[in-house]
């Protein structure tokens, strides 16, 4: 996702699918701008909003977290947080979610530098949205979205959030087919009602009609796409050494994930799988001297992808797992959509945050994934300033370590380069590999 600066930094990526996704994303964004300029409604969504509804209604949209990553990769953070400060806001809060609001304070966002002829805003700046939608999954998000909507003159819409009373440990075994067992029934009922309200709002606002057949098609395309991610995740998990690392998969998957529900995204997922499979068939390894397989927990470091590769030469330590591919593999598929398409979507979107941020769902899934991927060590980035991402790091660490996976926890910010120090963080990971990962693996091998 953070492809621009990432490729200019030392991160080395090799997949055609990644480049293809970046090119598609650029073309798609250019087209979106044209549609907005032509007067179409344009929605700005938080990542946990059920975008499938907008996809089915052909309402153009951009996802907040994707856009924050673009802005982060374009090194806009410093400027944006200066703008926040000047407007009287704190500049040390919610960097991930507040980036677009900060951008909305930038008078130069859509301007061209008269000297260089370059666009001043990231990708020429965010087109002016007419709709801003978020969910109430934390105390700050609705406030930020409302401020953002006000600055753009957009309609502000929120979707409620409910907390799971029932929390079966094996969500990843239940969510695809047995979601009625996974969730409290009343939470699903409420979520379906929220979807119906959202549809009403969008129909009213845009004049477009929600077509259930089109919606089913979108849901099926998503199942197809995520099915390829499942195959890809399983393929990577069983390969020793792995054919690709997280630097390859994060961008390739994330960009297509925001396009989910389109034919392009489903096909892209297939091509991604096929490309990696071809590497496997040729016996190619991402890091031929792979010795230690690392898992990355937390949001990606959009400002410094090269960080993930720092440990390959020195130790043969390879980051092979992030949530980005694995969530696609395990969290999105909902079979038998035709029975009740809206309920199937409800069963997807209400779990998304909880799978990642709610103990015990997150810790149990990480254990299962560490096992499947034959992980030797876990590096866990806890964001500095996000209550939503406060997700029970104690329980996650305890659960993984009890199963024999050493865990390093450190604090950082995924988009704020001001708070990122690759040397310090790299030093922590070096030490972790030397003092925990290597001895742990050695002793496991001796036991064998």
């Amino acid at each position, binding site marked *: 996702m953070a492809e621009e600066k990432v490729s200019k930094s030392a991160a080395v990526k090799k997949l055609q699918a990644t480049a293809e996704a970046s090119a598609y994303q650029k073309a798609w964004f250019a087209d979106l701008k044209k549609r907005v300029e032509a007067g179409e409604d344009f929605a700005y969504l938080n990542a946990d909003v059920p975008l499938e509804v907008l996809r089915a209604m052909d309402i153009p949209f951009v996802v907040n977290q994707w856009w924050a990553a673009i802005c982060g990769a374009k090194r806009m953070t410093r400027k944006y947080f200066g703008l926040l400060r000047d*407007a*009287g*806001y*704190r500049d040390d*809060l*919610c960097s991930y979610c507040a980036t677009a609001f900060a951008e909305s304070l930038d008078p130069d966002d859509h301007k061209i530098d008269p000297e260089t002829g370059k666009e001043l805003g990231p990708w020429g700046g965010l087109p002016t949205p007419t709709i801003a939608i978020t969910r*109430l999954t*934390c*105390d*700050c998000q*609705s*406030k*930020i979205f*409302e*401020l953002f909507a*006000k600055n753009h003159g957009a309609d*502000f819409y*929120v979707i*409620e959030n*409910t*907390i799971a*009373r029932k*929390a079966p440990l094996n969500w990843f075994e239940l969510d695809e087919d047995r979601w009625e067992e996974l969730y409290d029934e*009343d939470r699903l009922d*409420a979520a379906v*009602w*929220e979807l119906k*309200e959202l549809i009403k709002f969008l129909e009213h606002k845009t004049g477009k009609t929600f077509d259930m057949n089109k919606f089913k098609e979108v849901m099926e395309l998503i199942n197809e796409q995520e099915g390829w991610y499942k195959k890809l995740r399983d393929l990577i998990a069983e390969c020793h050494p792995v054919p690709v690392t997280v630097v390859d998969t994060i961008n390739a998957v994330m960009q297509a994930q925001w396009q989910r529900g389109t034919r392009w995204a489903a096909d892209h997922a297939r091509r991604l799988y096929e490309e990696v499979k071809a590497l496997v068939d040729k016996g190619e390894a991402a890091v031929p001297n792979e010795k230690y397989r690392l898992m990355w927990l937390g949001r990606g470091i959009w400002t410094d992808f090269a960080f993930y590769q720092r440990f390959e030469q020195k130790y043969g330590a390879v980051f092979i797992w992030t949530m980005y591919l694995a969530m696609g593999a395990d969290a999105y598929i909902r079979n038998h959509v035709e029975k009740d398409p809206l309920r199937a979507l409800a069963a997807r979107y209400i779990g998304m945050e909880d799978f990642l941020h*709610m*103990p*015990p769902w997150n810790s149990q899934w990480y254990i299962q994934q560490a096992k499947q991927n034959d992980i030797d060590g876990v590096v866990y980035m*806890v964001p*500095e*300033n*996000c*209550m*939503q991402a*406060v997700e*029970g*790091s*104690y*329980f996650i660490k*305890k*659960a993984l370590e009890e199963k024999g996976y050493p865990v390093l926890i450190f*604090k950082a910010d995924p988009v704020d380069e001001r708070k990122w120090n690759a040397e310090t963080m790299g030093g922590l990971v070096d030490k972790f590999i030397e003092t925990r990962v290597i001895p742990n693996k050695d002793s496991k091998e001796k036991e064998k």
Partner: protein
Amino acid sequence: MTIRQCALDCEAFAQLKHIYENREEIPAKMRADGVKVIGKLGCDVPDELIIAGGMLPVQIYADPEKELKETNVYLEYAFDPMVRAQFEKIVDGTYAGQIDALAISNSTDVLIRIYLYLRELHRVEPDKAIPEVEFIDWLFTRKPMHEARNELIAKIFWETAERWAGRNITEGEFFEAAKLCNDNKAALRRMQALRCEGRISGCEALVIIGAGFFMEKAAHTELVNTVADAAAQWPVIDAPKVFFTGSNQEDTSLYEMIENAGLLIASEDHDWGARVYDRDVNLDFTPVRGLADCYMLREFSGKKAFVSQRVAALNREVTQTGAEGVIFYTNQYEEAASWDYPSQKESLEAAGRRTFGLFKMLWPCDRNEGLADAFAGLAKSMKGGTD
């Protein structure tokens, strides 16, 4: 100023102050007499149902002196310091000896996390002395479906209260308890009117309100009414009136600092102050409807409302109070209200009110250097001097 001699000379106030300062005394006695004591974390736990079940609701509070041995193990740094200290008492066994169960409302995101952590602790470390925990998951956006769902949430908590009480709770018992609570709020509103006249200081008000968290409602109502009768004759405090918005104040230390500087806190919007008597349960509704209506439609809180709602709410509250200025004060890691502040400040200043913002404050307040001087400067400038 703070707590004046006229208040201390009032027998009813002295009793409230004693209870406020000895918060375990009445609950421990009642527990020894066989009454179940239910801890509440968050400001949206319905007292009405706990009381209807013959139990005593008590508010969980922090001990600023306590070392956070357990908390530092379990909680990340992003939890605000007061919640951290509350958590310590829940997980270190203190509350296990004082309450029979704990009800947590989703009044802020932080409390949702606390609930999830306690639930997980019960699962992974079952030997820890932590009371049984129940969560109350209100929706605060105001749509018809959300009201219907809130009625379901009220029903679920009703069943929990029955389980804790060990018996059914009848509608009659509910209405009786709801009336007790409404009467209590009415008495506190009488007291609030006297605050606005300047007859009761902010510190005195915190004591009067806060004592109610640790005693029976009827007894509290009686004492509050007696204090209100007496306070009508107390001298009017001659100081610029301010409204306090922000972090909960579980004790009077910050208010003392502000009022000693020469200001009068005429009202506030936090959970240990005027928010307690914000809205009644409508006794003409069905019980669950009345509960949903009361807890969903209270004035917009700093944590669960949009910026525009918070701007309007603060304007309304400040106008009602007649305050000349507003102190914004939030503790470190209590971030949500920071997003409201610039718009609130602009709106208040446009109406000619002074604003004074303090954020990322250390807790307890005496850890902040120069704070008393800052308030003295504010007081001086509000009195017409230069700060």
